[in-house]
């Protein structure tokens, strides 16, 4: 017990090692794997990311030019980021906040591009 005394005294005066989490959040580490976002302006809907995704969290419809992403299936492995040659799939260090439902995220090609194609 005496051996623990310096630690005990140190702990009495030092800051707590824990944080009151939802009220005070820690800054995310720069290289943390937080979540995946898609910069849809870059996307050519090639479907390479969907093919390699281990969790099948991405669906790409080439004809509709639509990408559906299920963030709650995603394991944030980063394979899509490595696969995408257009720099569309990106990883940011901020986590997805908890949710009651598991919504899908729809990414569609910008409208003006679509109109151009139809002409």
């Amino acid at each position, binding site marked *: 017990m005496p*051996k623990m005394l310096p630690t005990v005294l140190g702990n009495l005066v030092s800051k707590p*090692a824990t944080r009151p989490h939802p009220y005070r959040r820690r800054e995310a*580490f720069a290289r943390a794997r937080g979540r995946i976002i898609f910069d849809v302006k870059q996307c050519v809907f090639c479907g390479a990311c969907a093919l390699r995704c*281990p969790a099948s969290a991405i669906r790409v419809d080439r004809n509709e030019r639509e990408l559906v992403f299920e963030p709650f299936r995603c394991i944030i492995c980063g394979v899509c980021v490595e696969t995408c040659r257009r720099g569309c799939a990106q990883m940011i260090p901020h986590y997805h906040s908890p949710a009651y439902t598991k919504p899908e995220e729809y990414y569609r090609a910008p409208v003006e591009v679509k109109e151009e194609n139809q002409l």
Partner: protein
Amino acid sequence: MAVKTILPFGPQHPVLPEPIQLRITLEDENIGQVLPALGYVHRGIEKAGENNDYPLNVFLVERICGICSATHGLAYCLAVERLLGIEPPPRANYLRVVWAELHRLHSHLLWWGLLADAFGFESLFMQIWRVREMVMDVLEKTAGNRVIISVNAIGGVRRDLSEEQISEMLHTLEECEKQLYALLPVMLNDYTVKKRTAGKGVLTSEQALRLGVVGPTLRASGVAQDLRMTGYAAYGELGFEPIVEQGGDCYARAVVRARECFQTIELVRRALQQLPDGDILTKPRGNPNGKAIVRVEAPRGELMYFVVGNGTKNLERMRVRTPTLANVPALLEMLPGAEFADIPVITLSIDPCISCTER
């Protein structure tokens, strides 16, 4: 006359948060026969591994264990690399060692905390886990996640370390080592710790060898066997020596793990200092064909991967043998004769990881 009671220990138990059931026959306070019941968390990962493309399996096998995921990824990658006949670049080998050893460090610290918790030494538990948190932060800063770090890939690693990260890592490890040194006298010499662990659950070296025990449990029984001695990845170049204790009881197992924490810090330091320059990934080509067995040292002991490829992108078979499965028979020999109150400590002393065991 002694009263016989059959007591189910688990699958949900406050001391052992892992779903294994031990059916324990008690005679008064003494343990008689012990029967294990496994199968509460079987997830069919081996079968799932046959349906996935082989590069994607890395992410699957990492999810076998919730603590030593890097070691599982490493073992699988080594096996597939052997089938493909590719060699990862030297820098990748060193980085693999760094991350695998950091996982061992946090796993042993976690175990030490749980041990202290099992006999009610809450303040030691919290001190140790505070040190562990530094290791977790280092993992998150460098690999992106705390536990499932997905750094291994077929042919190398997926993330590199920058100079700043290396110096930050070295700095954190130094701090970690300092704080652990401060705790060491309590961990090893405290009356409570000794009273609850010394002489409990003794396993002799003959028993250990007969039962095929692995890992720190084996080394605490005086057998110098550690697969890192085989020198896979970069271990061959780091001058690794196994840590052995003679006691064979819970205390010896605790000492082995405590000493391994310091050894691990030293290994990471050496690996970072000798880190060669160059690429981190050799692109895999073709599909695996043939059979390969790879054995690596996970924090809990020998981890074996047997992989059969048939020339397609799917594997024919993936078989995993995890350390806890090898250590459960030892547990069944340690428990009989012990006292009721020692069940948690003895059970914890093999560092059971049931989600590994059942896959």
